[in-house]
Structure formats: C-alpha cells, structure tokens
C-alpha cells in the first residue's frame, strides 16, 4: 500500500492508480466531468485540476505516487476550476431553467458545488443544431461539453463506433458516424450505454423527460460530493 496526502489527510492506495482513482476509492470527492471509473481516462475537461507536489495537473491522467502531496481544496485551485466551469457554460448554450436535465446534470452540480451560480464570462451564443432523427434518442449539441464519454461508451462498452469528434478549436463538435451524419441512420440503440452516459443534457433518451419533477432530482436532494456522478439515463 502506498500513501497519498490529500489536503493534509493521508489516504492509502494500491499502485498503479491515478490521483483521481486513489481519491475515488478512498471516498475523497474530486470534482470531474469527463472521467468515469470504468472508461479510459481522457483529460479534456480539466475540472479535476489539482496541485500535486507543487505542480498543477489533471488528476485523472496523473499517476499517484507514494507520499505525493495533493491540494484539492486550495483557494487558487478552486478559483481555476470555477473559471473552467464558466468557460464550459459560455461556449455552449446552457439554459438550466429550460433544460430537462436540470437537477440531474453533472455540469450544473459541479458548478453549484463550487459556488458558480451565475455566469460571469461573455457568452458565445454559438448556433448549434439539434438532431431528432432517431426514434428513441435526441441530440442537442447546445449542451455538449466535448467530454467524449459517449464516444468512449460506444467504442468501449457497446462494441460500436457511433460517435467521433469533428472540427477543431472552438468549432470542435460531436459528429455521428453514419453516412448522412444523422443519429437516426447510425447504429445507436436505446439500450446502448452511449445513449445514457451523457453527463449533461446533450444526449437524451426520449419519453423520459420530467418523470421525476424538478426539486426531487438527484442533485436537488444531495450535492454531488455526496450523490456522485450523474446517473446514466436519468432526466
């Protein structure tokens, strides 16, 4: 067993493990969006940024080392996470009051956890399309945060390859791997994990909206450090 010192508290871990894996096993909450324990780490959202032995790193792609000192709740680290979260909000079109994912949305929950309750940055208002061509699943790219969980779920869990990323820079976007580029012409099935993994409201199974009323949803009841990752498929 090796030891990681997170904000002064010692936690044991079995190497090899990343910092976030070690913390997750020990029950220490480290805010994150693109990471899930059962998928290969990605390192794109950067919300899990911590200071490890004095260096700022993404906890999901950095190996935990014996005796490593990790700062997770330092003020400047939290400030950076808040900026990152704000960046994710303004680059897309996130209208929480009108979103059926509100209360089950991981972006919203992490933002509330860190006290980001109102936008402070300039909105981009990008024109982003909606794909309603699939009988059971809708894609609303206005809410996509490019975490690629659906890309990984389709490839690593479903044994398919329904999603990819197109474009680059601020124009990077999720694309559907079908001849027409439409979801309805892809191999996606409602039972696929990729149809339910989206941590925000970008990929939504149909006919499930508002079954749990606002006010009684996952993060309405408990904050994310208690409630954990967004449930798959819950809206």
């Amino acid at each position, binding site marked *: 067993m090796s030891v990681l010192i997170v904000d002064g508290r010692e936690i044991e871990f079995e190497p090899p493990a990343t910092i976030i894996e070690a913390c997750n096993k020990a029950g220490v909450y480290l805010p994150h969006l693109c990471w899930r324990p059962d998928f*290969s*780490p990605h*390192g*794109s*959202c*950067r*919300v899990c*940024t911590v200071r490890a032995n004095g260096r*700022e790193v*993404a906890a999901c*792609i950095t*190996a935990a080392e014996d005796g490593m000192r990790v700062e997770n709740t330092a003020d400047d680290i939290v*400030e*950076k996470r808040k*900026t*990152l979260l704000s*960046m*994710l909000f*303004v*680059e897309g079109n996130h209208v929480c009051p009108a979103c059926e994912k509100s209360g089950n949305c991981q972006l919203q929950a992490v933002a509330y956890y860190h006290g980001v309750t109102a936008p402070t*940055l*300039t*909105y*981009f208002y990008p024109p982003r399309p909606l794909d309603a061509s699939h009988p059971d699943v809708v894609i609303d790219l206005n809410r996509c*945060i*490019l975490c690629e969980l659906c890309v990984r779920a389709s*490839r690593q869990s479903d044994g398919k*390859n329904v*999603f*990819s*990323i*197109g*474009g*680059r*820079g*601020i*124009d*990077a976007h999720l*694309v*559907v*791997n*079908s*001849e027409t*580029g439409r979801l309805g012409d892809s191999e996606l099935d409602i039972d696929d994990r990729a149809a339910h993994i989206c941590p925000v409201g970008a990929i939504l199974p149909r006919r499930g909206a508002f079954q749990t009323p606002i006010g009684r949803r996952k993060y309405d009841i408990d904050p994310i450090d208690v409630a954990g990752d967004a449930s798959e498929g819950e809206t």
Partner: protein
Amino acid sequence: MTPRGAQTPVTPSDPGDSLLQALVRRQWTHGGIDEIAMAEIAGRYGVSVGEVRGVVHFYAFLDDASGVTHDIRVSDNIVDRMAGSAELMALLARETGLSPGESRGPARLSFTSCIGLSDQGPSLLVNGLAMARVDAGRAAQIAERVRRGESVSRWPASWFTIEDNVRLPGRLLRGAFAPGEALGRARRIGSAALLDELEASGLRGRGGAGFPTARKWRLCAAAPGAHRVVVCNADEGEPGTFKDRVLLANHADRLLEGMAVCAAATGADIGLVYLRGEYRNLLDGLEGAISRLRAAGVIGDGFDVHVHLGAGAYICGEESALIESLEGHRGVPRIRPPFPVTRGYRGHPTVVNNVETFIAAAMVALNGPGWLREEGTPQSAGTRLLSVSGDCASPGIYEVPFGISIAEVLERCEARDTRAVQVGGPAGSLVPATRFDHRISHEDYSTGGSFMVFDDSRDLLDVVTNFTRFFTHESCGFCTPCRVGGALLGKRLDKIAGGGGTRVDVETMRQFAGVMRSASHCGLGQTASNPVMDLIEYFPEAIDARLCSMDYAPAFDLDAALREARELTGRDDPRAHLDRSEA
C-alpha cells in the same frame, strides 16, 4: 477500435501510408474530398465515414468538396501583415471577385497561418505551392489567370522562386561531408561510443524545448519493441520561423544521414519525415535526396525513410500530435506519459527530433563531441539558426553562437528604433528594449529560432491580437482551457482595441491566462496566453491608452447585437445604431 497510442502491427514496407496521406493525395488530384470519396477512402482504411469527416475537418488544407481548381491562401503572420498581406488580400478579392473565406466554388481565397516566408512577404500558397514577395503587379497577374481559369501548372515557374536569404552562415550551414561519411564513423565507433560522444557534445533539441538529444536516443534504445522509429519533425509551424525551409532545401542529405545515425544509435528500422503541408514545394527535393542516399547505401538497408505531408495544422508540431497525424488521425496531443520514446508511432519506441537537431547530430557523429562545444555556452553548446524577420534591413537566416545577446542580433540584421522582439514566436516571449542585453540560450531566452522585430511605429496590441487569433485558430479543441480560453482572450482584446475595454478586462485576461498556462493539455494552450501576458507586463501603455475610463463595461455589445436585425431590414442609418456616448 483501438485506444489511441495502442501498439498496432506495422511492417517496415508500408510506413509511408495512412488515412491522412490518402486524403492529402485526393486533395491534390481532385481539388478536395467529396462525400463519395470520403466513403470510398473510409472503406479502404476500415474506418467510419464520420471519422474521415472528422479528419478532413481538422486539417485546414483539406476541403470537403471536390473540384477546387484555385485555392489561394494568404499568409496571415503579423510580419506578412506588416509587409502588406491585408492589402494583397483586398486586391486579390477585388480583382478576382472572390470573397475571402467563402468556401464554395472552384476558386477560393482565404488567410492561412504563417507559411514560413516571413523574410520575403507578403506571401501566399496557390494550391499548396508557395509564392513570395507578391506585390500588386504580381497579384493582378494572379487574379487575371484565376479569372481565366488557367491551370496553376501553366503559371510561370519564376513566380514560385523562393530565396534562401542566408545572411550569416556558421559551422552548421557551412558543414559538409560525402554521403555515408558521418554514418560510417558512427558505425565504426559503435552505438555506445556514439551516444557517449553525443552526450559529451551537449547537443540539445533545436525545436525550442532543449531536451538533451543523447538522453532521448538512449531512452528509445532502451525501450522494448519489435520496431523502433526515427521521426524528423519538419512541421516548422511557429510563426516567424523559416530556417527548416532552407535546411530542407539545401541540406536534406545531411538531415537524412542524421536520421540514419540516430537509427544506428537506437536500432531503429523505420524513418519518417513529417513535412508541413506549407512546404510542399520542397517535397520533390526531399524525395530526390532520399533516392540519392538510398543509391549511396546510407538508407534503404535495414533503415528506410518515408515522407508524410501535413495539411495545415500547427498543433502537429507537438510531438505526440505529430505521431497521431503520422498514423492518419486528427492531430490531438496524447496523454503523456507514456512518452514517444517508449510508446510512439503505432506504439513503437520513437525518437522525434527537429530538422536542425538531426543535422547537428550528423556533424557530431562525423567530427566528435568537440565540434559543437567550440561555440556556445556551458548549457547551450554550438550554434542556433535564427529566422529573423520584421523591421530590419536584412531579414533572413543568421547562424549565431548560443549566448549571443538580442542586441547583437539586432545590430547584425540592421534593425533601427526597435521597440520589441518576439523571441521564439508567439509561443515564446515578447521582449522589451530594457531586456535586449539578454541572451539567446537555454539558460536565458530559449527559442525555436523565430526572431520577429518590431520598431517603434508598430502597435503591439495589433501584434498580440494577431498571435492570439493564431492560437485560437490552431487550437485542436480538445481541452477546455485552450479551446475556450483562447477564444475568450481574443474577445477581450477586440473589446480593448475597439475602445471599450476597462481595468476589469485586463484582470479577466490574467485570470484566463492563469488557467490556460497551468491547466492546458499541451504546450500550445500552456503558451497561448504568453503574448497577452507579456504585453500587460512590459508594455502596459499599449493597453492603457485604449481603455475607457470606467472600471467596468459590459462585454455584451448591444449595437453589434443589432447587426442581424439591421441586415434583415436593410437599414444602416444612424437611428438603426445605438450611440455609445448616449448610453
């Protein structure tokens, strides 16, 4: 679907091919890649059409329609702008009737990132081929032939002449040897002695980061793998750099022999040159050198070299993105570790070095470790090729010993009234006159060789805005801080340039920069805010003079938001605008 970076089978006979190379060829032969071609190529490479689309849309030089006959891309580096590229673009647009940036029709006109001709701008690419010193007369001739629809292959060859502009050659540029001489000595002394000599020489990577070359080669040699790979990074994309252009044009034989020396030291059997798409005019010469060295027996037996072409993506200069691109994918940097020396091209241990590094390594293999040590500083042995451009009488290549001061370089290139020098390109440092006594070396100002000079007539806010836009355009879009932070910086700079900026905007830019520096996935995002931060630190007056007096002004521009409504109603009279002074 294999995870990125996984080890996949490779035979030494096919490393010249990939999905990207097929798309590049299709772009050349058919003026773009339409949906039918994408589907056909997807089938051939066993990937989905969506993935092919993702690759096509990642690379700036690939078009998703076919039949583009005239693709004109004007270099957008600030030094090209200073030489009149904006006026050139306006003239071309007027004379051809094309709208810049419009992506329809057989003839197209757009801006592109620096094409490596800052010493002879304004410059442009026509169907990927470089043209320098494009004055108004030449622009009119170009426009006329575009209007006539005349094939670029029939345009006068003299229009495509590129000058070397070597102003100060040193030991690296003057060095020469017969094919096989350096490799012969390397083989005679053996790989252990060769690596010792390389270490003793103090050679460090010339790409800018300065990693000790011997250490990199040793790590690769020690890593387990069925194959080992030597990659030459000829994706010289840092704006203002053009020394590899000259090295590739005139010293390709020594470069290839340097790669062969590396192969001898590491046991590599596969060699790849990643040539930036902007340097397509150098491809034939490079292929010629490969043929010559194969005939001379320097390569081809146990270690062969193939050329891959880039397609307009600065990020591919980052070594793990370069490897992704070599494998045919989008140029998104990998998670590191593992580093390429242990898991690189198709999972095999890979050395990635700069063009200049391989030539220097060949010279060390030939002459022993003392050759490099005769010049330079203790931590920075040898010489450095500087690409000097901007406000000076003699722009071009200067081979200088490490340790030379910025002031000495300015004197050499005959710069007058210099306000600032951008050392190391936009990813480097904006250096004010008070620091011109500082030195070009790994101990002081480390650089990949870009040296852009700005005199006191230049508005540095313009310069920094150009650099920031460059990074925004070239961000791969993978991680949040670089993808969004860069775009946000650009918005704030525009707000300040427009006279609507305040103190709060300057502080907000600091906040973005802090996040970009520490949280970005790779060097691009980590350095993309350098120009803005240097401007704030060293040239506050360039910003302060533009700020309005308020502490805070909303970023939301109400008047700009009404633009669409004005267009829809066909109005542009004063009453269709909001007057800022009334607000």
